């Protein structure tokens, strides 16, 4: 095997190596846990960056950005041009007003949940703060911090075991995250956040945040979001079970 260089590791992280070389890097990493951990962390960064910014692709483009070629040199139609310019400028200001408004609102429940999922679900060593072996303690602790009686739904019949949970800080205060794992290693996270009356109760809603699918709902001042990098139908089955257990 030829030597594996730093550049090869980055090309491996970015998935641009040919299969043969990629296999060589995999073999190289098998004997070097520190290097393997570094590669895993870099891949988690990639997932985190997509989770943070891919939603911008789906935003409507502000009207003001749809510029056309300036007509300022055409004196005979200067008046028309200035009228056009004013129109564009007003359009832009209206669009900007909208932008500012949207910027002030807190990130949506689904988006915050998807980011938390993308950041923590790839963790190998520290996916949770408190493991499922201390489930009672975990639930008591998170319930106390969120100010409501929480429960960790039982998803074993659906093939998902509880890994544990952690406390996060969300845009509206403390957030509980429960993590579940399937036999293949696929993970789902349940994100529970107080919404302090600023969101009405909702039925199930679905949001695609980059590669992360999210089902979410609001029930009596708490928002729940189930996130996973799995197909919508499969996630819906789990989300339905979670909903039934938490909102009897």
């Amino acid at each position, binding site marked *: 095997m030829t030597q594996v260089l*730093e550049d090869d590791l980055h090309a491996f992280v970015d998935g641009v190596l040919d299969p043969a070389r990629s296999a060589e890097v995999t073999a190289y990493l098998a004997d070097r846990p520190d290097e393997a951990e570094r590669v895993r962390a870099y891949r988690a*960064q990639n997932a985190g960056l997509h989770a943070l910014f891919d939603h*911008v692709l789906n935003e409507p483009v502000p009207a003001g950005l*749809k510029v056309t070629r300036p007509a300022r040199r055409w004196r005979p139609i200067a008046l028309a041009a200035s009228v056009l310019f004013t129109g564009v400028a007003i359009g832009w200001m209206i669009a900007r007003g909208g932008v500012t408004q949207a*910027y002030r609102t807190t990130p949506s429940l689904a988006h915050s949940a998807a*980011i*938390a999922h993308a950041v923590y679900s790839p963790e190998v060593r520290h996916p949770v703060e408190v493991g499922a072996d201390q489930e009672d303690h975990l639930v008591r602790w998170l319930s106390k911090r969120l100010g409501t009686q929480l429960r960790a739904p039982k998803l074993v019949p659906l093939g998902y075991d509880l890994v544990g949970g*952690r406390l996060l800080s969300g845009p509206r205060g403390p957030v509980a995250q429960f993590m579940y794992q399937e036999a293949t290693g696929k993970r789902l996270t349940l994100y529970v956040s107080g919404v302090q009356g600023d969101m009405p109760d909702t039925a199930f809603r679905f949001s695609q945040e980059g590669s992360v699918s999210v089902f979410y709902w609001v029930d009596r001042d708490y928002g729940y979001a189930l996130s996973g990098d799995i197909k919508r139908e499969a996630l819906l089955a789990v989300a339905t079970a979670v909903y039934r257990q938490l909102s009897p």
Partner: protein
Amino acid sequence: MNSEDILEQIPRLRRYARALLGDRYAADDLVQDTLERALSKYHLWRAGSDLRAWLFAIMHNVFVNQVRGRRAEIERTMEELPDIAVRETHSDALEVADVDRALRALPDEQREVLLLVVLEEMSYEEASRALNVPIGTVMSRLSRGRERMRRLIAGARQSVPLQVVK
């Protein structure tokens, strides 16, 4: 090139600008300036060449010339703060925004390379053309940027148990 082709690229330019600057308002200003520059220079664009690469190269130039000067002072101030100081207390400080915060702490040069490669999925060669630097520079910035992010994120997470244990 017609305006349809450029319109198609706007969402990608906005995503990149948002990630680069962190602020929605400033990012759309950068996109606006880039589009205006592109439209005034469209005669320099060679038909058949890669429009995306050309637009990102223009955005890079606008960023370097206009935005970076204004931001330099703010960034210098932030550089002086120890990484751990931004975390507040106990487990509440375990924020989902660790990745975002680490990204903000990168030098512009490293952040640009990382975002072109990761978000835009540009090849290292495309990134080198967009930024007008040798490919070796792209690789070293990518490597340093990723490692710095990793240390910042790890440091942020490890600082919490240290505070909780009494």
